[in-house]
């Protein structure tokens, strides 16, 4: 702003992207100019210069910026070749937002935060060298996958890999909480420790006894789940990852828990300050039993978690409530109450437009699709992680009597547009991504939370996902949610699943190690493969048939699946969970992808984050000509999104972050109808509800500053 008037500031240029030109066209060139000016005005000036790679590596190791271990495993000549290879791609950021996001959030900076020490190519090479652990071929492959934008590791990995001062590379943790003070105390400690190391932590509160439950047999002593939520909220805001990423937490509770109404009320617009929960994310676990009761217009029962644990000998969160529903209702030893089911769902539908929460987890759908033994009781901060866990038992001094298995997951995403460009080699790309993710799991050992450490050691769970699906639809002129787009989604995710199994099996075979529970899984029994071996696979629309030919894409056939089932049976799998589609916020800007499998939020998205402020981002792939193939999520409506996610879901062993976008005014019934549809279409989880409200007539900005012709133009 204080710059001379001749060269516009890059932020001004970026903002002009949001102000249409006189002819009504989107001024993409303003954003390109913004990216260029950003480099000229900021990045180039503030990047520390080195004469050569040797000098750079020595300096950054000596000054404790890069981890020396990253380089010790390779010959210098090989490292040099690798950097050459990366720089040879001549990578350029496709948007201002991508460049800005990379330089503000990922790149290595001097300790005073003033100067940049890495370029994008450097970060990619360091990540590859670090993850490949001395395997030069793998490092080269990872560089190729990342520089071609086919693969992008999730934020914590891309941010931390190879740095000397860093958080963990694993982003996502899910912790059980048992109904005793040792476990609650331990959980607070874990929340602090994990938050300090990055990413988000989710807790399941379902096991905890309800408000008014007895303590040491004295009735009306327990104060319920709300005060615990408050403690966690404070713990998360205290700890962040070296200030790089704020701590974030989520709490899940079953719709059958006694405290469910209090739990929901914490997010109400008029909630009292004492009970209000501002930054903790909430998720409600909904059973088929509850949905069926609502369907019939009946009440939904809430049961005492305290009584369930005493009667069944297992905590409420581990109980298949749908299976035992009638039995629980009839058991006089279990305290219960009931709420009209549709009214309860309406309450959920009231709070979502006010706050975006709660998430929804359809627990019975999740468990039916679980290929592994055990019960999945919760999801995570982004509702894409769905894994089993086992409880820990504590001694009175807080030490472990039994170390249970808690859940961690490291994520990465593949860009559908870039993957399809290289369709004949999809298998190789999936294998490299799987190996990169597996490396993160192998290299991670969270000592501060032993239950996470042990869970990871036994499971090697990873989560490979997609982004830029809507970008691919747009470029190929398919309409999001139409039959063709569903056909493509089904076959694409099936292909990825096939190669993911193949890769995990290859790793197990090389190492002679499977994940611990493999022998008891539906993979080992072969049951998992019935879905694939009982039918033929191929395109069902002309459009997708055309794409198969155009991209030279080989779709795994029924015979391929039969052979794969045999292979897996013989050698096993290394990763207990393999696939999960994350929401991909930040990394999709850097990668220039539409996020996740969602439609675009806006053609020019107004993005606000704590670290970057308010910025403007053009939808990847969008031009002034193809705008009609880039409908916004508000235009497609929630049903199209649910259909696309429903097409992908059978091929994803974990979950997918499915955001719902609604335009105000909203009724709770609309929200509920969409939830009913999602449940009936086999959707596992629902993430945020985002709301958009058009300006009231007469208050639009355009009406006082511009001519009417320009107003029309804004409606693009």
């Amino acid at each position, binding site marked *: 702003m204080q710059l001379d008037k001749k060269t516009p500031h890059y932020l001004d240029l970026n903002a002009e992207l949001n102000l249409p030109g006189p002819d009504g066209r989107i001024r993409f060139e303003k954003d390109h100019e913004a990216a260029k000016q950003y480099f000229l005005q900021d990045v180039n000036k503030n990047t520390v210069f080195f004469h050569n790679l040797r000098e750079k590596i020595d300096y950054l190791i000596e000054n404790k910026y890069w981890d020396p271990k990253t380089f010790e495993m390779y010959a210098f000549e090989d490292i040099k070749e690798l950097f050459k290879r990366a720089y040879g791609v001549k990578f350029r950021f496709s948007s201002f937002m991508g460049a800005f996001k990379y330089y503000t959030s990922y790149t290595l900076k001097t300790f005073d935060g003033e100067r940049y020490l890495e370029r994008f190519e450097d970060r990619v090479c360091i990540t590859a060298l670090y993850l490949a652990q001395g395997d030069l071929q793998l490092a080269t492959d990872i560089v190729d996958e990342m520089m071609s934008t086919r693969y992008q590791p999730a934020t914590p990995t891309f941010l931390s890999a190879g740095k000397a001062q860093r958080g963990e590379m694993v982003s996502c943790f899910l912790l059980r909480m048992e109904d005793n003070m040792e476990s609650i105390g331990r959980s607070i400690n874990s929340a602090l420790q994990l938050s300090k190391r990055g990413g988000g932590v989710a807790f399941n509160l379902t096991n905890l006894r309800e408000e008014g439950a007895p303590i040491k047999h004295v009735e009306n002593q327990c104060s319920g789940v709300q005060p615990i939520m408050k403690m966690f909220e404070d713990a998360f805001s205290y700890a962040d990852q070296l200030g790089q990423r704020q701590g974030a937490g989520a709490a899940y509770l079953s719709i059958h828990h006694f405290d469910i109404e209090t739990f929901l009320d914490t997010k109400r617009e*008029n909630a009292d300050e004492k009970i*209000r929960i501002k930054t903790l994310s909430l998720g409600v676990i909904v059973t088929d039993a509850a949905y069926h009761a609502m369907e019939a217009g009946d009440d939904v029962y809430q049961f005492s978690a305290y009584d369930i644990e005493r009667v069944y000998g297992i905590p409420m969160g581990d109980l298949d409530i749908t299976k035992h529903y009638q039995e629980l209702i009839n058991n006089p030893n279990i305290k219960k109450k009931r709420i009209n089911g549709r009214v309860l769902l*309406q309450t959920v539908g009231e709070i979502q437009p006010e706050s975006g929460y709660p998430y929804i987890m359809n627990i019975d759908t999740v468990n039916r699709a679980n290929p592994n033994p055990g019960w999945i009781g919760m999801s995570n901060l982004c509702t894409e992680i769905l894994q089993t866990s086992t409880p820990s038992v504590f001694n009175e001094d807080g030490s472990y009597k039994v170390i249970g298995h808690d859940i961690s997951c490291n994520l990465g995403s593949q860009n559908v547009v870039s993957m399809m460009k290289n369709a004949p080699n999809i298998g190789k790309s999936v294998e490299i991504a799987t190996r990169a993710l597996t490396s993160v799991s192998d290299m991670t050992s969270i000592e501060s939370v032993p239950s996470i450490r042990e869970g990871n050691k036994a499971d090697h769970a990873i989560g490979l996902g997609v982004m830029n699906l809507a970008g691919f639809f747009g470029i190929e002129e398919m309409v999001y949610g139409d039959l063709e787009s569903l056909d493509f989604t089904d076959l694409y995710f099936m292909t990825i699943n096939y190669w993911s199994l193949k890769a995990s099996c290859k790793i197990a075979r090389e190492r002679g190690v499977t994940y611990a529970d493999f022998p008891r899984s539906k993979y080992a029994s072969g049951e998992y493969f019935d879905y694939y071996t009982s039918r033929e696979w191929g395109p069902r629309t002309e459009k997708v*048939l055309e794409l198969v030919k155009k991209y030279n894409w080989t779709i795994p056939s029924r015979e391929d699946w039969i052979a794969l089932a045999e292979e897996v049976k013989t050698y096993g799998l290394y990763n207990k969970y393999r696939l999960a589609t994350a929401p991909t916020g930040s990394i999709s800007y850097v990668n220039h992808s539409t996020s996740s499998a969602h439609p675009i939020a806006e053609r020019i*998205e107004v993005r606000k984050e704590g670290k970057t402020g*308010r910025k403007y981002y053009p939808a990847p792939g969008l031009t002034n000509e193809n705008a009609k193939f880039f409908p916004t999520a508000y235009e497609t409506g929630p049903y199209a999104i649910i259909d696309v996610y429903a097409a992908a879901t059978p091929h994803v062993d974990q979950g997918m972050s499915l955001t719902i976008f609604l335009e105000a005014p909203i009724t709770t019934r609309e929200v509920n109808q969409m939830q009913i549809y999602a449940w009936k279409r086999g959707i596992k989880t629902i993430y945020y509800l985002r709301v958009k409200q058009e300006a009231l007539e007469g208050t639009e900005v355009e009406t006082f500053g511009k001519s009417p012709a320009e107003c029309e133009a804004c409606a693009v």
Partner: protein
Amino acid sequence: MSDNTNILTLAISNPVKPGKLLDRTKAINWNILEDQKDLDVWNRAWENFWLPEKVPLSNDKPSWATLKEHERRTTIRVFTGLTLLDTIHATIGAPSLAEDAQTPHEAHVFNQFAAMESVHARSYSSIFSTLCLTPEVDDAYRWSEENPNLQMKAKLIVSLYDGADDMKRKIAGVFLESFLFYSGFFLPLYWSSRGKNTNSADLIRLIIRDESIHGMYTGYKFQRKWKTLGAERQEELRQFAYEMLYKLYENELKYTDDLYSEMGLVEDVKAFLHLNANKALFNLGFEPMFPKEMLNVNPTIMASLFPGSDENHDFFSGSGSSYVIATKELTTDEDWAIKPRNPLDGLPILQIA
């Protein structure tokens, strides 16, 4: 009307004398409308109800700490200035506009505005208590009481609110809500575009969302009555409006100088004043005062102004400024009876030649 207003009407803490059309103790009937706009605005206003407690202001603490001392001082002063204006509008402005109501429903809409103005005034205090130390805040309040230009605009507006002319009252209301607030709104929007204090900016965006409706509606009511007046009276009001706006504008220039010269933002804020002065006139149905060349508002601020809720925030660092209150409606048997199917089911597989 949805029953979600029941829980929220409690928020109206402002004792307001009933509008002139209501003093026969007639119960208001929202089913008989004299002006459809009353219901539209009422609905939107309640749909947009919010309280500052939902915004995690404490997440701004790290970026607040990076501001230089004079930047902090300016920011606090901006907020005390805004607090003063909101206080005036909540306690004197909106209630007096309610008294002038031309339809019974209009009075209730202004009551809602009054309640929200109190919420706005309260919000700035939330920012103070979260981010600032007491002496800093006390200092800023003292500044707001002693700054002659701030006091001047307060006095001008209050004198109109207290006056005998209902149309001039409306003019004052529009000038306050569409013009005078914006010299203050500039700074949080500026910070937000620079990646600082983004949660305070969320709060300001919520306030802008409200003010844009208040200014539009007050102006609309002005224009509605204007049409019924004789030419002479119309001319008197038109002249009065331009003169008053110019007086306020001159004062606003001095105020802007007091506030922003230390940060070197005076010229940017001025362009913003011109734009908003034109908007205030637009709301009253009058021609703009400033030519296009003088509306060269910084694009980062311009692009933040859209009152629609288009901001796609990340949930880890803020609560956003786009959430609304939904109307309650239970699902029915038909909603539950749906039997959706996968549209791909049953379609034959095409052979890849």
